[in-house]
């Protein structure tokens, strides 16, 4: 085995910490580059890189689930949305600046305040920090007995703090409603046009090869979230990514003929309902809302069923809302192009 691991220490710093320093350094550089780049297309790509670096940093910090989410959501969906917006609004930024003095003042105020707060923070990585002493040990040492899943993050996410996750699913749904209200429902009849990438044979072939494995991977992430990093959010986003890829290569109309707007609206509502109904079922069984023990005779089995269903609900809502949002942005782009 190579002698490069977390055990290796260079001058009192272990290698994880060195990687941490380098990654965060990169992050600052990228952030500065975003600030000073005048071309918005370049800034958008830099935000993608920024998200990917953040994801890398999260892996170093042991937050694999978060890293997964950040990579798929931040570097994937957010960047695509930004690019489609820029396509509609133009790539150049006006160099004029507003409220520079007030801005600097506010920014410095916040900075000083934070620096002040850092002074008394527990030392980074210290295992005796209050954060690790109170509630966390319960999750780490009891979750196997109470919920029976190796991935503690999934246990906390879907069961201990399942209500937060419900709220989060609703947030995603709300964003879908918002985008639909702002961009959607225009009576835009797509004209039969050639697909945008019809002449890109290589892209078409490669994406045809890639899309089935992406779907497969999404399903794996969805149902393997109990044992490894992953879960409904990541799976939903990956699933959506496959469809977004398909519609970018083969045209929005083709994708829409497979997944129509009414269907996708229905699904986005269905996911939230599924999550809520799991909670209602536990209510009707005489337990508290979202108490999965009520779902089966054996509480552990109940937890398993509950988490499976709930993650499925999350996955469906996230996937359909992401597709919905992308479709609405993309059809705007098509509309503007037709007008030209």
């Amino acid at each position, binding site marked *: 085995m190579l002698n490069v691991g977390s055990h290796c220490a260079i001058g009192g710093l272990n290698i994880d910490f060195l990687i941490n320093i380098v990654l965060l350094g990169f992050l600052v550089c990228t952030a500065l580059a975003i600030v000073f780049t005048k071309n918005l297309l370049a800034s958008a790509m830099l935000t993608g890189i920024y998200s990917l670096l953040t994801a890398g940093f999260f892996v170093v910090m042991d937050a694999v689930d*978060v890293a997964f989410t950040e990579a798929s959501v931040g570097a994937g969906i957010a960047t695509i949305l930004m690019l489609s917006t820029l396509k509609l609004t133009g790539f150049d930024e006006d160099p004029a600046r507003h409220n520079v003095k007030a801005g600097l003042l506010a920014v410095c105020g916040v900075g000083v305040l934070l620096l002040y707060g*850092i002074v008394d923070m527990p030392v980074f990585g210290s295992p005796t920090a209050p*954060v690790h002493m109170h*509630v966390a040990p319960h*999750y780490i040492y009891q979750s196997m007995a109470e919920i029976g899943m*190796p991935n503690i993050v999934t246990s906390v996410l879907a069961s201990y703090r399942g209500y937060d996750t419900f709220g*989060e699913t609703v947030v995603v749904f709300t964003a879908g409603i918002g985008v639909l209200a702002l961009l959607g429902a225009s009576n835009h009849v797509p004209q039969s046009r050639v697909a945008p990438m019809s002449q890109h044979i290589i892209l078409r072939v490669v994406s045809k090869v890639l899309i089935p494995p992406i779907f497969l991977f999404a399903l794996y992430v969805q149902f393997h979230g109990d044992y490894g990093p992953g879960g409904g959010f990541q799976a939903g986003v990956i699933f959506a990514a496959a469809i977004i890829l398909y519609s970018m290569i083969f045209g929005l109309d083709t994708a829409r003929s497979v997944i129509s707007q009414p269907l996708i609206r229905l699904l986005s509502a269905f996911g939230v309902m599924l999550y809520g109904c799991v909670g209602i079922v536990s209510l009707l069984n005489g337990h508290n809302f979202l108490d999965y023990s009520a779902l089966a005779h054996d509480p552990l089995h109940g937890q398993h069923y509950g988490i499976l269903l709930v993650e499925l609900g999350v996955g469906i809502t996230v996937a359909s809302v992401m597709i919905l949002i992308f479709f609405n942005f993309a059809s705007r782009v098509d509309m503007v192009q037709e007008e030209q």
Partner: protein
Amino acid sequence: MAYLAQYNYWVVVVLMMIGLYVVVSHGNLVKKLMGLSIFQTSVFILYISMGKVDGGTAPILEEGISVYSNPLPHVLILTAIVVGVATMALGLALVVRIKEAYGSIEEGDIQEKDKQSC
């Protein structure tokens, strides 16, 4: 060394200031949203950093491992990331509509047009 130990938090401060500065002083609406996302990401880094335990591993239970990083901040930030992208999507949709309505996505232009129409 004592200062270096809090390195992550220093970076949080720097990123937060950069993000906030972009939001306040840049006039381009898409750029503002990018700044907002940098700003939010800095908070994610704050949370995730506080969950790290020296020598710990990812909080996925396995035989033979006894030290895990704190899973709770991970859960919270998972939520916050999704909230962040939801906000971003809504903001971008607004920007698209503003472009259609005003013909510009620069703060200065928009304010000027509002003044004229008054």
